[in-house]
């Protein structure tokens, strides 16, 4: 039995939300149809649409371990290694179908991390967080909801812990405890897909000590709960989407968005609280969520597929595709992209079962994978721009191309191979521009750098997990070094 929403049902469900969203200083009255936000909703819609297609269902769907029903994989708790591998494959698939961030992975990573941490807190303290969480998860699965997994606090002065910040609200914290729940205040920054989500799941952003226990909280709320306000982040070239044409935005259908989410004294009922002042588990939740989310950067392999396809196409349009150095650069782009794929498959294949029953990625390999993600997309983008040529950034607008006075000159002087339309050349250049320095570069480049933790966060995790001693012992043994005990 399937309980999955269709893409149309998903869109309709968003229209019923009463979100408070601001952009360019004004309240957005119709979020779903706003031309700047709409492409990001289209990208999330693909996670619903593909789940209903027989040719994708093997990856896009799973069987709920709670209900036994067929569900969207984004609502699933990984039950085995195969689930972890399919998660990586799903990321590549959706990235390659949309050419951008499809936003729904962060909620999947949040529920999987919470399935483990709530279990472990209960095991230590005899609490009932896991029972609460599983009831909440069942609701998410039954309704096929999109969840925003919200971790990153504004953080203020990075040298100070939460309780020493000049402004206590720079980390999300509890300000009041009631019989029926808690009241929280704070904000979460960089929230990908926030206004396309039905739910928002809050997690602490760093390891904490006892002095920070008011900040060690995790909970879930409907995205339109009273007191929540969204402020949409700007993206390079974002207003091209509202110019009315269909060429200059590069990707005509899909995009992403990020938002600053404000929690201005928001009430959370106890049944939706999954961590409350268990400060010694904040670090574990951060680490588990981050490791899953670092695996999720499988999506960039899919976006890389699109960029490689676009680059080969412009090489052909320019008549440069047979040049040996161009061929070699295309090969290098593929080598880099498939190396990224190796990482996200490896960390899934080397995953393991946790006490809760949830399968967890190999954290060393997921951090290595994400570290590569902070680098390789930049190199792939550089090679794409190398092959595309400077026209990508000097090309006049669609309106000039369609101008009755000057359009003929663009048609004439921007012609590549004689048998191909100039417009095709312009469109593919705009797509490369979109991914490497336009709106989609937010996801493909800077998000690759800082999303799921900045590069140094992965290096710290890598340094903690490598077994240097055993490597030294082997090296010394092979060259005949004998040390006294």
């Amino acid at each position: 039995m399937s309980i999955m929403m269709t893409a149309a049902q998903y869109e309709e469900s968003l229209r019923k939300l009463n979100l408070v969203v601001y952009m360019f200083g004004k309240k957005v009255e119709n979020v779903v149809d706003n031309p700047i936000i709409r492409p990001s909703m289209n990208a999330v819609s693909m996670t619903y649409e593909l789940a209903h297609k027989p040719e994708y269902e093997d990856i896009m769907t799973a069987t709920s371990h709670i209900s036994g029903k067929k569900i969207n994989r984004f609502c699933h708790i990984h039950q085995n290694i195969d689930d972890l591998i399919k998660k990586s494959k799903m990321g590549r698939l959706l990235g390659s179908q949309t050419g951008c961030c499809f936003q729904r992975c962060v909620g999947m990573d949040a529920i999987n991390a919470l399935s483990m941490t709530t279990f472990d807190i209960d095991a230590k303290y005899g609490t009932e967080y896991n029972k609460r969480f599983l009831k909440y998860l069942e609701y998410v699965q039954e309704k096929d909801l999109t969840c925003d997994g919200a971790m990153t606090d504004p953080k203020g002065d990075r040298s100070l812990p939460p309780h020493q910040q000049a402004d206590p609200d720079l980390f999300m914290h509890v300000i009041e405890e009631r019989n029926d729940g808690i009241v929280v205040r704070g904000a979460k920054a960089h929230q990908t897909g926030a206004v396309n989500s039905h739910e928002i799941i809050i997690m602490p952003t760093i390891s904490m000590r006892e002095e920070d226990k008011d900040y060690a909280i995790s909970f879930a709320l409907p995205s339109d709960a009273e007191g929540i306000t969204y402020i949409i982040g700007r993206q390079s070239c974002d207003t091209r989407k509202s110019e009315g044409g269909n060429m200059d935005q590069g990707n005509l259908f899909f995009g992403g968005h990020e938002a600053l989410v404000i929690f201005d004294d928001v009430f959370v009922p106890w049944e939706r609280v999954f961590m409350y002042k268990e400060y010694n588990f904040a670090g574990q939740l951060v680490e588990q969520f981050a490791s899953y989310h670092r695996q999720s950067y499988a999506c960039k392999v899919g976006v890389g597929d699109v960029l490689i396809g676009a680059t080969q196409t412009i090489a052909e349009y320019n008549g440069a595709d047979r040049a040996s150095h161009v061929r070699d650069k295309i090969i290098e782009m593929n080598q880099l992209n498939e190396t990224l794929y190796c990482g996200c498959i490896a960390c899934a294949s080397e995953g393991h079962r946790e006490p809760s029953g949830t399968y967890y990625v190999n954290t060393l390999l997921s951090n290595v994978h994400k570290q590569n993600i902070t680098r390789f997309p930049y190199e792939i983008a550089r090679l794409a721009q190398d092959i595309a040529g400077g026209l990508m950034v000097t090309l006049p607008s669609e309106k000039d191309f369609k101008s009755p006075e000057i359009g003929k000159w663009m048609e004439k002087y921007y012609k590549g191979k004689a048998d191909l339309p100039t417009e095709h050349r312009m469109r593919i250049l705009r797509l490369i521009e979109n991914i490497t320095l336009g709106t989609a570069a937010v996801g493909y480049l800077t998000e690759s750098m800082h999303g799921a933790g900045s590069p140094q966060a992965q290096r710290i995790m890598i340094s903690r997990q490598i077994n240097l001693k055993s490597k030294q012992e082997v090296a010394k043994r092979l060259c005949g070094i004998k040390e006294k005990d």
Partner: protein
Amino acid sequence: MRHQGERLIRFKIRIKYCGGCNPHYDRVKLVEEIEKYIRTNISGEITITTRDESADVGIIICGCSVCCVDREHIKDGTYQWHVVGPDMLDYRQVPITKIAATLFAVLMEEGQKT
């Protein structure tokens, strides 16, 4: 598969696609070609289903040579399965342009035996 003399009168095929993470060819188009070839060459009631239900024969459609979906739990033994991949039929090399015809010949041969 049932026969009336030499002619098939009822034939149900179950299609099981892989998830399509990085397919090397258009899987849906190939299935359309297989269906068209079968419908062109035999008369009778041909049913193609992608649901998990009983059939006369199953075809696993793999987007790449990994064939990740060719698993025992899918091939539960109640009917014959064939595996199609890029330039491959049942793990033997067959050009993609000839897969529909080759598969049809295999199905006919199996039909003669039942």
